């Protein structure tokens, strides 16, 4: 069983990590790049497949060379065997459509066609959820979205999945699809390991991958434009039909209390602070 996970590096939007300029624009240079948090569910689904059925897991992303570290992080999480990064200046500034075409070509370029491609549930920066389904459309494969549980019959070459209907946790349907197939894992996806054999294999893979992730570049292949030979009109900015009309910054919440800045070396000012605080200190 050969599976591929599509993943993306996104700005780390956590408090204390993310940096915006005065106009509210994201400062990419000052904000670290991390793996899209929603891709975690795709990684878990791929790992479950590898643990249960053996085989390999590959990770693929499109982005600047700095995304290598994102792939390394993913390798450690999903115990991946190989990493692929589609990276070239000409691919830059792509929207989801140009990205999908690039990734689809990258998939065609793999030595072995994957049985299942896992995609994450929308990215933290774009929030579109387009890239997985569009890449699938390029491949002309079936796709199952909002997957919360997964079972694969290798002999029958079919995949059976439980999925949320319209993303509603109250309504779950079971669907079957032939392989190869795309799967979008829902945030509700829960991997299950009810057999000791699977947990033991999981443990083995963890030990093996720790070593592999240290030398991840030995397992990384970069696909550039020369390698993929894409039509320049279909990739990067030129291949992106999306036009951003404008960006409305989210207004900063007004302060709830008035703050006064005090220089701690100013003894008089500090004495005033103590005087202010005294009634609340509960002292005699």
């Amino acid at each position: 069983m050969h599976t591929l996970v599509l993943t993306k590096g996104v700005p780390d939007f956590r408090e204390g990590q993310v940096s915006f300029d005065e106009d509210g624009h994201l400062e990419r240079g000052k904000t670290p790049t991390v793996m899209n948090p929603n891709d975690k569910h795709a990684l878990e689904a791929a790992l479950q497949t590898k643990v249960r059925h053996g085989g390999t897991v590959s990770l693929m992303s499109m982005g600047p060379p700095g995304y290598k570290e994102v792939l390394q992080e993913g390798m450690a999480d999903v115990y991946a065997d190989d990493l692929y990064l589609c990276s070239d200046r000409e691919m830059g500034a792509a929207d989801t459509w140009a990205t999908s075409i690039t990734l689809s070509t990258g998939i065609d370029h793999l030595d072995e066609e994957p049985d299942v491609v896992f995609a994450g549930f929308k990215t933290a920066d774009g929030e579109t959820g387009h890239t997985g389904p569009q890449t699938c459309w390029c491949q002309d494969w079936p796709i199952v979205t909002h997957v919360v549980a997964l079972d694969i019959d290798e002999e029958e070459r079919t995949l059976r999945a439980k999925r949320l209907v319209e993303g509603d946790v109250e309504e779950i349907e079971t669907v079957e699809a032939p392989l190869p197939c795309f799967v979008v894992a829902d945030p509700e996806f829960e991997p299950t390991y009810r057999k000791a054999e699977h947990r033991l294999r999981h443990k083995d893979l963890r030990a093996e991958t720790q070593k592999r992730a240290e030398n991840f570049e030995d397992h990384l292949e970069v696909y550039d434009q020369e390698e993929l030979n894409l039509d320049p009109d279909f990739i990067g900015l030129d291949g992106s039909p999306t036009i951003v009309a404008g960006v409305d910054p989210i207004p900063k919440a007004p302060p709830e209390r008035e703050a006064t800045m005090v220089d701690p070396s100013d003894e008089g000012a500090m004495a005033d602070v103590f005087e202010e605080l005294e009634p609340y200190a509960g002292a005699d």
Partner: protein
Amino acid sequence: MTDDYEHYEAVVVGAGPGGAAAAATLAQNGVETLVLERGVESGSKNVSGGLIYAEESAPYTIDGLFPEFRSEASERPVTEYYLHNVAGRNVKTIDLTDLHEHDTTWSDAVLRRHMDSWLEGRVHEMTRETGGGLLTGVRVDGLLREAGEIVGVTCEELDPIKADAIIAADGVNSELARDAGLMDWEDPEEWFQGVKAIVDMPASAIAERFGVDEDEGVAHLFSGDLFEGVRGGGFLYTNDDSLSIGTVFHLDSLVAEAAEPHELLDALLTHPLLDQWLQGEYEELEYGAKLVPDSKKAANPSPHQGRLMLVGDAAGQMQAQGPIIKGMNHAVSAGALAAEAFSEAQTRGRPGEAGQRYETKLRDEGVMAKLRPTRYTVASAVGENGAVASVTDSLVDSPLGRLGIEAADRLGLLRRAFNSPFVMSVMPDTRTPYVTAPTAIAEALGTPVREENDVEPPDLADRIGDLTYDVGDPHIELRDNSFAASGAAVSACPVSAKDFGGGCYRDEKVKTNGHEEHLVSLDTQPCVECGTCAIVADTEWEHPAGGKGVEFEQG
């Protein structure tokens, strides 16, 4: 429909020293072995007094099975061993090194988290070689049966697993032993309860205050009048850079005196005698507790049923040889013997005979004779007879008794008696050896301690607060909440106390329909999973789910 279940040749439940010894021996014999441990890591559910022995006469030792054990998993060896008889400030110290060294190749202090997690790594490697392995965070909650026969185990986290042999090394509160009806939790007289504090102390301070080099260590025992008359005693062992200080009491005596275990521990910690070592500094790293079976009464001489074999605490294999407590060494022997029994039976094509072979080995290798000495049965019939016990106790406590003690000391008999494995193994479970005699010895022969000990141990709320928990669903149900049925748990539970609202068990007076009822209530959140309440109260007791509940960092 059990055909789809996974199958292993052997399943070992619990990865303490007994389980580790069993699994290592099975793997060495080429048996496909799965080890299931419910803690997040081996050792995270374990507390022990803290000394492991390698006996000269034992069929197996832990370092025999795991050659790097002493250099990598244990703390300091015990090179000196003392018993302090205490009466008020008066202390008479007797050197017990001879008794300690009897039949002993070596004995090391251990901390269970460090020790067991080290064993976990070795055991996983060994069992993986033969097609099995070790999994943590899996709670085995019962036996799988087919047509009434035991064929495997059931787990919370995994589908049922079938096996040709099931070795239950799941500790003092073994759910498998109870499921098979081989052990029960009924009689407080069959149990001890131990509580222990791990106290931070740099190696340099240990060297200076105990007068030991880095490859030396000391054991100190304490008995006499410092524990409110409860039958039992205290201990202090030196680790690499901490001390294990604790108390062990007969559970029936704790219940009878309605004593609070943590207060008895504090009585030891604050006794002036300890000032020479603590010197006013006290930082408690961990508070823990454990139930300890008294093998003289509880060890099952036939610890097997069908494919199931019990080893270690699960089979009551914990020997109290007077003041010296030996448990882990017997668990190691038993685990390896059970494994050996299965391998032999399997080789002969009759795996069903493993249990009987195991029982025979326990007897032939002398393990059972140590656990349940015949001479104790005879001695206890006399010594624990109410009238005889009362006369003996009064005699020891009388002026005549004092004269005898002084004479015995002059002749060197006292030291010889305490160092006699024979005398120690026939000591009756009465007040006399635990309380009256040590007190009388200290009064007659002791010298007063002049130092003041001003350490302040943490209160129960802080002790509970310092423990790590991942609380799951409540794992204990109180079946009868009347004070008459379950009230003993309020004081006997090591994390509850009569006037403390933050513990497991609480004392409540509830007014209903004009009359007042005396009840107890239970909140399992701060539970240290010792199992005391399973015996002294009316409860439905089970372990928390795998990886849930208390997690000991030291153990």
